[in-house]
C-alpha cells in the first residue's frame, strides 16, 4: 500500500506548499465510507445546467479541506469540466450555453474545443481529499497541487517534460490521469472566476 500521507507531507515540506496536496480518485462507484459532497444543487441555468458547485475545479479547492465523493450530476454546471473529466462527450455539451459563450467570445475556437484532452473512461464517482488523509480503500489516480511561481520553478526542474498549459485549466487532470504525464497550468479565466 502506498504511503500517501508520507509522500504528501514530504512533498509539502520540500516545496513549502501553502495548501496540502489533493488526491483525485476516479472509480466505478463511490468508495465505501467516504462522505458524499452534499451541498445543494444550484438553480438551473437557462439551458438546464446545474450542479453542486460552479465547476469541477471548485472541488479541487474543497478537496484541500475534507475528503468527499462526487457523481456526475454534481459536476453538471461546467460543460468543459464535465468533458475533461470523462463525464460527458463533446457531443453532449456542444449546444450548452456556457460552451456557446466560450466559443462566441473568441476565448476558444471550435476546433480547439474538440482537441481538449479528456478522460475517455466515464467514471461513476470522483473522490477528492487531502492526500495525507487518503482512506485505505481509496487509491488516488492524480495528485493535484496548488502552487506559486517559485514552486513551479522547482517542479519544472524536477520533472523532465513537465507540460505547462493554459486554458482550460481542468484538462491537466486528464493529462495526468489519461496520459500519465505531469502537467501544470497557469490557470484560466473561467476557473479563476469560479474559484475566486
Amino acid at each position, binding site marked *: 500500500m*502506498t504511503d500517501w500521507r508520507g*509522500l504528501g507531507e*514530504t*512533498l509539502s515540506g*520540500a*516545496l513549502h506548499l501553502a495548501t496540502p496536496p489533493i*488526491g*483525485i480518485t476516479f472509480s466505478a462507484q463511490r468508495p465505501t465510507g467516504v462522505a458524499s459532497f452534499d451541498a445543494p444543487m444550484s438553480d438551473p441555468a437557462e439551458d438546464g445546467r446545474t450542479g453542486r458547485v460552479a465547476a469541477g*475545479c471548485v472541488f*479541487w*479547492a474543497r478537496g484541500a479541506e475534507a475528503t468527499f465523493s462526487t457523481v456526475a450530476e454534481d459536476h453538471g454546471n461546467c460543460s468543459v469540466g464535465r468533458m475533461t473529466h470523462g463525464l460527458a462527450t463533446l457531443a453532449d455539451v456542444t449546444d450548452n450555453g456556457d460552451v456557446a459563450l466560450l466559443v462566441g467570445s473568441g476565448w476558444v475556437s471550435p476546433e480547439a474545443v474538440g482537441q481538449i484532452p479528456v478522460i475517455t473512461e466515464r467514471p461513476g464517482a470522483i473522490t477528492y481529499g487531502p492526500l495525507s488523509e487518503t482512506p485505505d480503500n481509496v*487509491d*488516488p*489516480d*492524480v*495528485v*493535484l*497541487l*496548488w*502552487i*506559486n*511561481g517559485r*514552486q*513551479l*520553478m*522547482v*517542479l519544472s*526542474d*524536477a*520533472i523532465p517534460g*513537465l507540460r505547462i498549459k493554459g486554458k482550460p*485549466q481542468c484538462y*491537466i*487532470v486528464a*493529462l*495526468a*490521469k489519461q496520459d*500519465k*504525464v*505531469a*502537467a*501544470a*497550468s*497557469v*490557470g484560466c479565466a473561467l*476557473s*479563476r472566476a469560479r*474559484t*475566486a
Partner: protein
Amino acid sequence: MTPDQMTCAIPAGKLADVVAAVIATAEADAVVARYAAQDARRFS
C-alpha cells in the same frame, strides 16, 4: 484561486519519483541561492 496561484497535476503512480526529484532539486536550489545571496553582498 488567488492571482498568484497555479496548479500542477501529477500522475499518482509517479509521485514517489517526483518527491525524490523535488527534494534533490530543492537542495541544489538552496546551495545556489545561498551562494547568490553571499555573492550579492559585494554589491550592497
